[in-house]
C-alpha cells in the first residue's frame, strides 16, 4: 500500500502550516508507506502531476479558490475524479458558497473542511481523514469484491458483501438492499446472475447474497439475513436454497 499526499493552497503561510501537519503525520506513522510529492501554491503543478501519476492511492488536499489562477479547486477535483474513482479528495476552504452535498455526490469528495473552525481543529480533521484513509487501504488489501452499478452514465461502487439481496422493480430497474440503504439502478437480474455466480435466485424477482444468509423462515416464506433484514422466497425455491446453503 502506497499513499501519496498532494497539497495545494494559495496562501503561503497556510500552505506551510498544512505542510507541517502532514510532515508530522508521516513522522508519527513510520509503519505506513506515505509519500508527500507535492505541496504548492499553484494548481498547475497539481495538474502536471496528474499527467504522470505515480503508483498508489492519491490523497488530495485542495483549496477551492486560487487567487492568481483560472483553475479552480473544483475543476481540479473533476479532473482527478475522471482519472481515478478511488483517489481521496479533501476540500479545505473558506469558500462558504460551496455546495457541499452537490460535490459530495458529484465528485465523491472525501471531506470538506471549512477554515472557520480554526487551525487546531483543522489539524485534527486532517489527521482523522488520513487515519480513516489509511485504515480503509489496509482493509482493502484483502481485496473485497466490489459491485459496480450505474444510473445513467455514472458508475458507483459498493462492497458486494454489504448487499443482502437484489430485487427487480420492473424490466429495467433493480434495487439492492443493504443494512441501511436501498438503491435503484439500471439492469436485469439475469445479467447479474451470470456476472456474479455466487448470487442465488430465491424468487422470480429476487436474487440473494448467500454470504449474508442467516436463516430461513419456512412458515412465512422469508429469507432472513445477518443484519435482520428479510425478503420473500418462493415455495419452489426453498429446498434448492437449503441444498445450496448446506453444500457451501
Amino acid at each position, binding site marked *: 500500500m502506497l499513499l501519496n499526499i498532494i497539497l495545494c493552497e494559495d496562501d503561503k503561510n497556510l500552505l506551510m502550516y498544512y505542510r507541517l501537519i502532514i510532515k508530522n503525520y508521516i513522522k508519527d506513522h513510520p509503519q505506513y508507506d506515505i509519500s508527500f510529492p507535492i505541496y504548492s501554491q499553484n494548481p498547475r503543478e497539481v495538474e502536471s502531476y496528474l499527467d504522470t501519476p505515480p503508483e498508489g492511492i492519491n490523497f488530495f488536499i485542495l483549496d477551492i479558490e486560487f487567487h492568481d489562477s483560472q483553475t479552480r479547486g473544483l475543476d481540479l477535483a473533476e479532473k482527478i475524479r475522471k482519472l481515478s474513482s478511488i483517489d481521496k479528495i479533501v476540500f479545505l476552504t473558506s469558500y462558504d458558497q460551496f455546495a457541499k452535498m452537490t460535490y459530495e455526490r458529484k465528485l465523491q469528495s472525501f471531506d470538506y473542511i471549512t477554515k472557520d473552525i480554526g487551525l487546531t481543529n483543522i489539524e485534527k480533521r486532517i489527521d482523522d481523514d488520513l487515519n480513516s484513509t489509511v485504515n480503509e487501504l489496509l482493509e482493502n488489501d484483502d481485496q473485497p469484491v466490489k459491485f459496480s452499478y450505474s444510473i445513467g452514465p455514472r458508475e458507483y461502487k459498493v462492497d458486494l458483501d454489504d448487499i443482502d439481496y437484489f430485487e427487480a422493480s*420492473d424490466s429495467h430497474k433493480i434495487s439492492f438492499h443493504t443494512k441501511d440503504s436501498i438503491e435503484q439502478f439500471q439492469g436485469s437480474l439475469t445479467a447479474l446472475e451470470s456476472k456474479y455466480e455466487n448470487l442465488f435466485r430465491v424468487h422470480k424477482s429476487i436474487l440473494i447474497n448467500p454470504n449474508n444468509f442467516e436463516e430461513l423462515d419456512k412458515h412465512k416464506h422469508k429469507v432472513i439475513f445477518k443484519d435482520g433484514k428479510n425478503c420473500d422466497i418462493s415455495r419452489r425455491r426453498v429446498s434448492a436454497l437449503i441444498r445450496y446453503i448446506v453444500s457451501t
Partner: protein
Amino acid sequence: MISFSNISWYLASATNTLLLFMVLLVFVPEIVNRFNISIIILSSILFTFADVVKNGTSFVLITIVIFYMLRKSKRKKLFKLSIFLLDLLITISTQSIASYIVFNLLKITFSPALIESVVISLLISLLNWILAIGLVLIIRYLINKFYISDELIQWIILLSLTIITASYIGLVLTSRYLKVQLTYLKLTTAILFLIIAFITIGASFFIYGHIKKIQADAELKTIENTNLYIQELERKNEDLRGLKHDYKNLLLSLEATIKDDNNTEAIKKINAYTSTNSVNTKIEDSGLYSIDDELIRGIIVTKLVTAKNKNIETHFEIADSVNFANSNSVEITRILGILFDNAIEATIKSEKPILDFALISYDDSIEFIIKNSVSPNQKIDINNIYTSGFSTKKNHSGLGLANIKRIVDSNSNYYLNTSFKNGIFEVILTILEVK
C-alpha cells in the same frame, strides 16, 4: 283664468325640477353653497313658466344650469356626465312609478277641473320625492362601497346610463306624443325596468371580468417587484460573501504567521475571534430563483419556508440552470412534497432538527437530495419503508411513501436511493433525461 289643472301642472313641474337639483346636490355635495341654492330655487320656479312659452325649453335650461354649477367641481368629466344622466334617470323613473301608484294602484281618477287635481299632483310629487330619496341613498351607498377608479369601467357605466336614460326618455316622449301616456304607464314602467335589469346585469358581468383582470395585473406586478427585490438581495449577498471570504483568509493567514513566533496571547485572541458568530454567520444563498419550473420552485420554496418557520436548520443547494424541459413537473412536485413533509415531520422530533436539500444538474439527468436528522430513539425499518401501509408514525397510513414508489416504478427513468446512516435519513431521486 288659471285653471286648477294648470296650477297642479305648475306645481308638479316645479317640484320635479327642484328634485332634479336636489339629487344632484346629494351626489356632488361640494357644489352646495348659498349662490347655487338661490339659483336652484329661482330656476325651479322660472323654468316652469318657460315651458308655457315653448314645451321642452325647461329641460334645456336645466341642463345648462346643472353644468354651470358643476363646472367648479374638480371631478372628472366622465363622472359629471354620469351623475347628470343618473340624476335624470332617477327623477324621471320615480315620477313614473309615483304616477303609476297613484293612478293604477290607488285607483284615483284625474279630473282636471277640480281642486282635487292639485291634491293629486302634490301626492304624486310627494311620492316622487320619497322614492327618489330612497333610491339616491341606496345608489350613494353603492357608489361609496364599490367606487372604481378604473376609467374603462367608468365609461361602461356612463354608456349604460346613457342607453337607459335615452331609451326611457324616448319611451316617455313617444307615449306623450301619441297621447297615450296614462294608458301605457304600466307598460312603460315595465319596459324601463327590463331595460335597467338587462343593462345592469350585462354591465356588471363586464365590470366583474374587468376587475379580475386588473387584480391579476396588479398581482403580476407585485410578483415582478418581489423578484427584482430578491435578485437585488442575492447580489448584495454575493458581495458580502466575497468580502467575508477575503477577511477570513486574512485572519487565518495571520494566525499561521503568528504561530511561528509563538505569540500565544495573539493566537488565542484571533482564534476566539474567528470562531465567533460574527465571522461565521452563514449567508444563505439558495439560488432558488434560478429554477425556471414554477411548480418545482414553488414546492421547494414553500417547504423551505415551512422548515424555517419550525426552526429547522436548513441548507439548500440549487444548481444553476437546471433543465426541466422534458420532466413531468407534476409528478416531481408530488414526490418532493411527500419527501419534504416526511423529512420535516421526522426532523422536528430530533434534538437538532436539520433539513438539507440539493438539486444537482448533470449533462443528462437531474438529482434531488433530501436529508434530515432523525431522533436517536426513532427506528426506521428501511426494508419495508416503501410498502403500502407502513409508516414510522403512529395512526398514519404511510400512503405517502407508497405513492412515491408507485410513481417511481411507473417511470423507467426515475431512480430512488434511500439510506439511513448515523441518524441521517437520506433520499436521492435521480431523473434521467428521456431520449
